[in-house]
């Protein structure tokens, strides 16, 4: 796609972007020499950074290639994804983030397993080991899905081979993530989020303009397939239609407890930053998701019959804009991919270094050596994801959701119960994590196809919550943990009641 001159312009924009990223990595490396510096930027991030970082980490190449492709395939039925994600993010920031921040500040936690271990007084380290296994397994799949998106993006924009696209994306991400740690990741997420925001306003507007305006767009789509205009899609109000809508809306549940997102709340400077960040995050996700669905819908009219629906955004950018703008859009796609992969690498590296090496085997190891180990592990995990993405180009939308659901089903029930139910016990949390994780994986691999294609997120959550609550009812919570829970609730308040704000 594109001439040598056009490819030159795209490469020039790409080169400039990579220089900025590596520059951020170098700048951030000054504060990433300790474990807390490398993994949570010493808990000093302002609202803008955590808001964009959380949203871009949650969205990824899935948003720009996966959700646009889904909009292309099912039309306005994809708005159910928007509903789930906007509600999920709003509830996470409004109700989950504040008590989570308060607890993690009291414990000096820098990872989610850190928090769960201290919350449930787990001296046996079972929570850390279970968490590390789940995180490392799912991050491998998640990273591979994002590198798949990188391969598709490079081959669509520049005509490179899929494998070369995977390789280039992996090389850049590994370079700046291993240099700068979490601070580099968070600030590069901010840059990447601003680019995504601009792109997801500009592309749908240009698409609707090219289609001859809104009325022409809806008339053209309706003529092609009236089901694309309906909220329940091709199935209508049938069991299959309702299950499909629930599966789409259920994607947003993961925002309530996925560890890569909770880490952002931990790294905020204080609770005031979280309130401000929530407003920014919700506005961002509204623009991101509606923009992506509209790109898919307009693409269906402008470029019907694409062999791979998930290339609609690159095709649209290349056909509607000059080469420099196409280069910027490629950067935006890569930004979305990178903003997620870098966060996942940091998450996996923290699970291994902080939760296993530092807390179990080498509590007295020097901070600098552990941070160096974190950099090394970041490289190793990234290379493992590269190996998985190399051989096969899968459908990004569902591949990402598999890993997304596995992580969220394992952690969300335990985290939410720990924050909102004082009777939650250590055994309840551990068995809830294991049950939620296994249910999501088993459902995705063997049950889903026989059950109206219901997303693994919903059974994963249901079983995770049921087991956490059930086991907790038959075991005894730590007494001082309950008193501490009451104190945190007094400080942060309830859902709609104001807390006292201090201890």
């Amino acid at each position: 796609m594109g001439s040598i001159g056009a490819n030159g312009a795209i490469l020039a924009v790409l080169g400039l972007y990579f220089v900025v990223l590596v520059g951020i990595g170098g700048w951030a490396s000054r504060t990433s020499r300790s474990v807390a510096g490398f993994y949570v930027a010493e808990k000093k991030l302002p609202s803008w950074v955590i808001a964009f970082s959380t949203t871009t980490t949650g969205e990824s190449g899935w948003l720009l290639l996966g959700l646009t492709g889904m909009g292309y395939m099912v039309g306005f039925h994809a708005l159910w994804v928007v509903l789930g994600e906007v509600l999920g993010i709003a509830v996470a920031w409004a109700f989950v983030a504040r008590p989570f921040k308060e607890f993690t500040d009291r414990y000096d936690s820098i990872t989610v397993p850190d928090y769960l271990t201290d919350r449930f007084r787990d001296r046996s380290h079972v929570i850390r080991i279970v968490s590390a296994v789940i995180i490392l397994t799912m991050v491998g799949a998640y990273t591979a899905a994002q590198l798949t998106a990188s391969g598709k993006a490079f081959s669509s924009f520049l005509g490179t081979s899929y494998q070369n696209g995977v390789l280039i994306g992996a090389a850049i991400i590994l370079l700046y993530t291993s240099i700068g740690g979490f601070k580099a990741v968070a600030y590069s997420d901010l840059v990447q989020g601003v680019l995504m925001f601009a792109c997801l306003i500009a592309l749908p507007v240009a698409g609707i303009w090219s289609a001859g305006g809104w009325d022409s767009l809806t008339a053209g789509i309706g003529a092609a397939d009236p089901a694309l205009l309906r909220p329940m899609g091709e199935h209508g109000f049938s069991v299959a239609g309702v299950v499909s809508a629930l599966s789409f809306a259920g994607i947003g549940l993961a925002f309530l407890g996925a560890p890569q997102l909770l880490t952002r709340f931990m790294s905020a400077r204080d609770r005031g930053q979280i309130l401000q960040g929530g407003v920014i995050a919700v506005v961002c996700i509204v623009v991101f998701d509606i923009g992506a669905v509209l790109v898919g819908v307009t693409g269906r009219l402008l470029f019907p019959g694409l062999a791979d629906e998930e290339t609609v955004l690159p095709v649209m950018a290349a056909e509607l804009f000059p080469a420099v703008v196409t280069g910027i859009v490629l950067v935006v796609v890569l930004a979305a991919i990178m903003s997620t992969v870098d966060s996942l690498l940091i998450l996996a590296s923290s699970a291994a270094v902080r939760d296993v090496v530092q807390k179990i085997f080498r509590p007295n190891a020097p901070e600098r050596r552990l941070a160096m180990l974190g950099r090394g592990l970041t490289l190793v995990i990234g290379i493992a994801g590269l190996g998985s993405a190399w051989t096969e180009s899968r459908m990004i939308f569902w591949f990402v959701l598999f890993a997304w659901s596995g992580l969220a089903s394992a952690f969300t029930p335990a985290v939410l119960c720990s924050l909102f139910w004082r009777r939650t016990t250590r055994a309840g949390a551990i068995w809830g994590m294991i049950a939620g994780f296994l249910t999501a994986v088993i459902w995705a691999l063997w049950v889903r196809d026989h059950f109206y294609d219901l997303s693994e997120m919903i059974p994963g959550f249901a079983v995770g919550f049921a087991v956490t609550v059930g086991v907790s009812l038959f075991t005894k919570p730590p007494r001082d943990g309950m008193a501490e829970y009451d104190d945190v609730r007094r400080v942060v308040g309830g859902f709609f009641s104001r807390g006292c704000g201090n201890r």
Partner: protein
Amino acid sequence: MIAGLPLATWVLFVLSVAPGLILIVAAYRIHGPADFPRDEKRKTRGDFAPGGRGPSSNPGTLLGTRGSAKGTNAGGISRSEGPEG
């Protein structure tokens, strides 16, 4: 049909956006007074200031004034610290 889309699709559009926005703004209004420093509220005559980041003159609400549950609080942070970058 309204502007080319069925009414139900417009309803889904509104449901996708409105509840989330209302929820986060409500949380901001309810919890803001406790989470933002008092000086910021004074500036805006009793209403807390959006985007405000306060000075360190609010003893008792500051992370840096707390000890942790384990008594270490290595990550203790004072609000007097400036923004990053």
